């Protein structure tokens, strides 16, 4: 025992006084003074501190932080000597888990407790477990960007802050599902709302906000983001993060393993959100056509999520699936065995018959639209001079199977045209149908189904009609289209604005009424997708972009005089010209033999097969970020092999860790 005294009060052992502050790093904090020797174990010191404080509290999460060395004293069996602690050490006795504000990929803020003492890799894994995101190795944390002091006029609206800081997870076990969500979310209405925020796509952002948010204008702007990644082998405390700080949670490595809509609602949604924001903020470029598909998917996803058709938590009950199969089999059998039913359904294929105006563009013709009697049956469109001639031969008959259907609609101009490009052995014949407002949706839906070889008897016909009507009402912005205003919290009064679905540069390029029909056109191909399917489709389309998954860093290659961009993707490194943006050279990881980091001169050297050597120093970000990216991707590529195994954290830290000892 330290602190043996003589009768006169002199200490006769080698003990000395150690002052420990209680609380987080705060010079004003209360402190306790202990009598210790160099042989005292940390565990004993902890015990003494608690005794001295003499307060009833759960101290189990507390540990000692050594300020000067920026180090936690977590090895309770180590002695003070082993740690090298002397009387001048500034020690803080504080909690290891502290609250942070996490900015999620969907741009919502969430308060939760993160570990400040474990390596970031573990801390992120714990956060992901709490949020029920599988494969935490793909995510990491970024420092929030410095907030530029804006003029006081622009008051940011108070945003909702979700709070999970009181939720404690039992370690180790995967949280059980309860009422379709992980059990720890179902404790209170508040956490339940939080789960909905996590697992359901957010409504489209306000177009004005979209225009205000910073967007990268050049490649070098795109490098900025990557300078903010935190170090995954060190703890938050060591990286200067304080309790209550804001951090961004993002998918860092663009290699998404085993993406399964059924088991991963939160992961899928957050990934979708990150992809969506990537596109909206022009972090990744796409073509006009691709943007329309993205917009259509967003529109569709938003519609589904607002209308509450989130889809039952599928896959929870395999028995139910069996039942479904059995039922559908039965259905098929019944249909097969009862020919009369089939006959009925065949004979009652709905037809459309009406007066429409038709225009066939031909060379050297000045004829405009002409009124015809049009009959649409199965997939065939026939038109006659008048209704009386209908039993006879039509002027023309067109089988719409495989045709292209393009809407040409201007609601305010009361123009409802359907442009058809009908293939025939001779080529495509073009024909325009001009409908009345109330005719349009039915004819359009019929044309679309016919182009896919389906008739109006198809079950999707009604939903197709509804989708078209819904979209038409979108165009009547201001007039308050009926039925399309979802009851969701953020469905603004003016209806859906197509500008919220596309990147701002398209806002400048197109008027809203130009944009809407194009989105509608793209929407017809995705209208039948479920929420999860649509999200997955969105992610896939995002992944198919040529620039997908490239993280940009500004570097200076050895022997080069100008800065260049290094793009890091999941399978390759790309050398990119900074000014022009052209790819200069690509190296694949599969050809990489080794990479080294010289921490002194901040240089990364890589050797590829056939003695190709590359070396560069990092300009825009620390070279440890580049190093961690490379190592991380290589770690991720080993996952396929280790499928089903526990995450090999040591390997990850070994591949990404830097100069610190483990």
């Amino acid at each position, binding site marked *: 025992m330290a602190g043996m005294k003589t009768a006169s009060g002199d200490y006769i052992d080698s003990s000395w006084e150690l002052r420990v502050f209680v609380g987080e790093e705060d010079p004003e904090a209360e402190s306790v003074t202990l009598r210790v020797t160099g042989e005292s174990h940390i565990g004993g010191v902890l015990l003494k501190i608690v005794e001295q404080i003499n307060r009833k509290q759960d101290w189990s999460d507390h540990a000692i932080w050594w300020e000067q060395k920026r180090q936690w004293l977590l090895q309770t069996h180590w002695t003070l000597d082993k740690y090298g602690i002397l009387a001048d050490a500034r020690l803080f006795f504080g909690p290891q888990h502290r609250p942070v504000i996490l900015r999620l990929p969907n741009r919502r803020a969430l308060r939760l407790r993160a570990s400040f003492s474990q390596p970031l890799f573990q801390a992120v894994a714990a956060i992901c477990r709490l949020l029920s995101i599988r494969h935490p190795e793909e995510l990491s944390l970024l420092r929030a960007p410095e907030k530029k002091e804006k003029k006081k006029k622009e008051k940011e609206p108070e945003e909702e802050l979700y709070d999970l800081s009181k939720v404690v997870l039992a370690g180790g076990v995967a949280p059980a599902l309860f009422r379709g969500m992980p059990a720890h979310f179902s404790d209170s209405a508040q956490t339940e709302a939080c789960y909905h925020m996590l697992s359901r796509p957010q409504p489209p952002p306000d177009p004005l906000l979209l225009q205000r948010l910073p967007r990268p204008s050049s490649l070098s702007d795109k490098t900025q983001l990557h300078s903010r990644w935190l170090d995954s082998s060190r703890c938050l405390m060591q990286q200067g993060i304080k309790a209550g700080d804001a951090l961004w949670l993002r998918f860092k490595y663009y290699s998404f393993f085993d993406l399964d809509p059924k088991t991963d609602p939160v992961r899928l949604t957050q990934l979708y959100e990150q992809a969506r924001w990537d596109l909206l903020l022009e972090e990744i470029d796409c073509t006009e056509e*691709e943007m329309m598909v993205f917009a259509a998917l967003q529109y569709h996803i938003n519609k589904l999520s607002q209308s509450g058709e989130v889809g039952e938590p599928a896959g929870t009950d395999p028995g139910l699936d069996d039942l*479904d199969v059995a039922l559908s089999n039965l259905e098929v059998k019944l249909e097969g065995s009862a020919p009369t039913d089939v006959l009925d359904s*065949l004979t009652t294929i709905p037809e459309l018959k009406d007066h429409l105006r038709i225009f066939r563009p031909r060379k050297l013709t000045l004829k405009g639209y002409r009124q015809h009697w049009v009959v649409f049956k199965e997939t065939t469109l026939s038109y006659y001079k008048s209704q009386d001639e209908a039993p006879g031969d039509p002027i023309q008959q067109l089988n719409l199977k495989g045709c292209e259907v393009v809407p040409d609609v201007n609601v305010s101009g009361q123009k409802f045209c359907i442009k058809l490009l009908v293939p025939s052995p001779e080529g*495509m014949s073009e024909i325009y149908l001009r409908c009345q407002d109330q005719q349009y949706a039915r004819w359009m839906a019929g044309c679309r189904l016919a182009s896919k070889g389906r008739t109006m008897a198809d079950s999707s016909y009604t939903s197709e009609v509804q989708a078209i009507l819904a979209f038409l009402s979108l165009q009547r912005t201001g007039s308050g289209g009926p039925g399309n205003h979802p009851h969701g919290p953020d469905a603004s009064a003016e209806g859906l604005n197509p500008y919220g679905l596309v990147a701002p540069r398209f806002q400048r390029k197109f008027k809203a009424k130009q944009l809407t029909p194009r989105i509608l056109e793209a929407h017809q191909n995705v209208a039948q997708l479920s929420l999860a399917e649509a999200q997955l489709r969105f992610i896939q389309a995002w992944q198919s972009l040529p620039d997908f998954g490239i993280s940009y860093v500004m570097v200076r290659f050895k022997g080069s005089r100008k800065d260049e961009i290094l793009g890091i993707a999941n399978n390759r490194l790309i050398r990119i010209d900074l000014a022009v943006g052209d790819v200069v050279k690509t190296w694949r990881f599969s050809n990489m033999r*080794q990479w080294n980091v010289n921490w002194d001169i901040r240089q990364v050297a890589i050797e590829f097969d056939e003695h190709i050597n590359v070396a560069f120093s990092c300009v825009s970000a620390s070279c440890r970020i580049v*190093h961690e990216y490379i190592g991380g991707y290589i770690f991720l590529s080993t996952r396929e*092999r280790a499928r089903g195994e526990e995450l090999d954290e040591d390997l990850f830290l*070994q591949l990404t860790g830097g100069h610190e000892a483990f």
Partner: protein
Amino acid sequence: MGESSEDIDQMFSTLLGEMDLLTQSLGVDTLPPPDPNPPRAEFNYSVGFKDLNESLNALEDQDLDALMADLVADISEAEQRTIQAQKESLQNQHHSASLQASIFSGAASLGYGTNVAATGISQYEDDLPPPPADPVLDLPLPPPPPEPLSQLVVKVHMNDNSTKSLMVDERQLARDVLDNLFEKTHCDCNVDWCLYEIYPELQIERFFEDHENVVEVLSDWTRDTENKILFLEKEEKYAVFKNPQNFYLDNRGKKESKETNEKMNAKNKESLLEESFCGTSIIVPELEGALYLKEDGKKSWKRRYFLLRASGIYYVPKGKTKTSRDLACFIQFENVNIYYGTQHKMKYKAPTDYCFVLKHPQIQKESQYIKYLCCDDTRTLNQWVMGIRIAKYGKTLYDNYQRAVAKAGLASRWTNLGTVNAAAPAQPSTGPKTGTTQPNGQIPQATHSVSAVLQEAQRHAETSKDKKPALGNHHDPAVPRAPHAPKSSLPPPPPVRRSSDTSGSPATPLKAKGTGGGGLPAPPDDFLPPPPPPPPLDDPELPPPPPDFMEPPPDFVPPPPPSYAGIAGSELPPPPPPPPAPAPAPVPDSARPPPAVAKRPPVPPKRQENPGHPGGAGGGEQDFMSDLMKALQKKRGNVS
């Protein structure tokens, strides 16, 4: 033809009877009855095929046995479908029903012409004596009498200028037709065989993708068409899967890289394929360059800079850069097929003869809606065509390939087994479906069977064409031969496709872990005490993956003749002896590159990866066989 015509008739009618029974037992797969409306005039199938009665009359003698073979194939196919239907319902694939239904409805619209053929069959059947009670094939009949499938007789031109007439029903995919042709032609069944459509008028041609519905494609042809269907080998068909580096890693215009590409080893190829086709989304090769575009309606060609993206072909408008935001869409692939153009230099004054054409499949004549493009050389041409196919068909292409590979390898094996089936029912249960029995005394390697089949298949596939070494794993239960002698020189068995490790050398860091990093010492950190184990992967003693030298793969086993015997169980020859126990697993090479592989057992292939594609990944083939066995066993049980 030694047999008398009576014999043929007898057999023929038996077969028809069988077929009827089998079709009737297709509880799930029933077609809706024919539309009561009278056939429309414009639908006429006189293209390359006629209705059955007519063709029967018209057919010459040697075509009769061709048709017989077809019928056999049909029966076995019907059987297959029954089983598949059962299987599918077992596998919770309730959507398959709707899927097939949609295929039907697709076919239904072109059904009028074919109905003639269908009725032809049924009338014929009425005259037939009741089918003889076959102890093997007597299935319990479900009540609904469905409509027989409508069939077409298609004339296929072989590469020796002969033709074969073939029955194709409206549900058959190009893959099925190819399988039929394999049986008829005794060819080597390698993956390059394809159905090929040529349009003499437009001078364009293309191969059918294996998943395409043949009748549907043919229905786009006009009545008086000169179009033909060929059966031939085209190595372009699956070139990307044999040498993915030529499409994915080609550095334009750099000769040295081209050479290194040729040398890419099998393992890297595999990881490249996996990366490109097995992720959440497939990767379309990055392809861009100047091509000539034929201007609408003119014979002049304009050079433009084109880029391929997953969403379509784009070009760089005048005065713009090739950044994504400036690109203008040239065409999207949804409604067009890609064709090779032949001799367009002559026909359209194209700058070169390396042309490809994009058009809607229904367009059969010259039209401004046909897009003609022209490349500088054949390599570029092949890259574009393949790239467009990948963008258009996506993962389906890879699934097709894997089926083709499986088929190529299985062709000999399963036709052997096919005759054995009845006698030795336990045999095919090695399939992953059952998964429990390993009658061959197989070493317990989790689920090797798929891999073995695939690899064997792969070997077969590759043997015939180029002398590529087989991809590892030498379990070869079917081919009775001594184990290969120089086992140690073999490369370690690469993990099964899909489950394999992703790359060779990036795995080397794992090595660094073992050795504690012998390489470049990283300068120690400022104050942290122990010098850190450096991250570098310096690993000088690690040799590159061993070159693939090994003896050429076993000789090709010719497929046995198409056997009608498969139907008439009583006429079976004595079953061949069961395959010998397979060769032991190759001894892992000492110079195995990634130690991590050694640490972990090979990952079992994931069978259920995409249950949506029936038989998509070769495993289906086996599933089918084991299911067939079960069905047969069941049947026997019913009889006895």
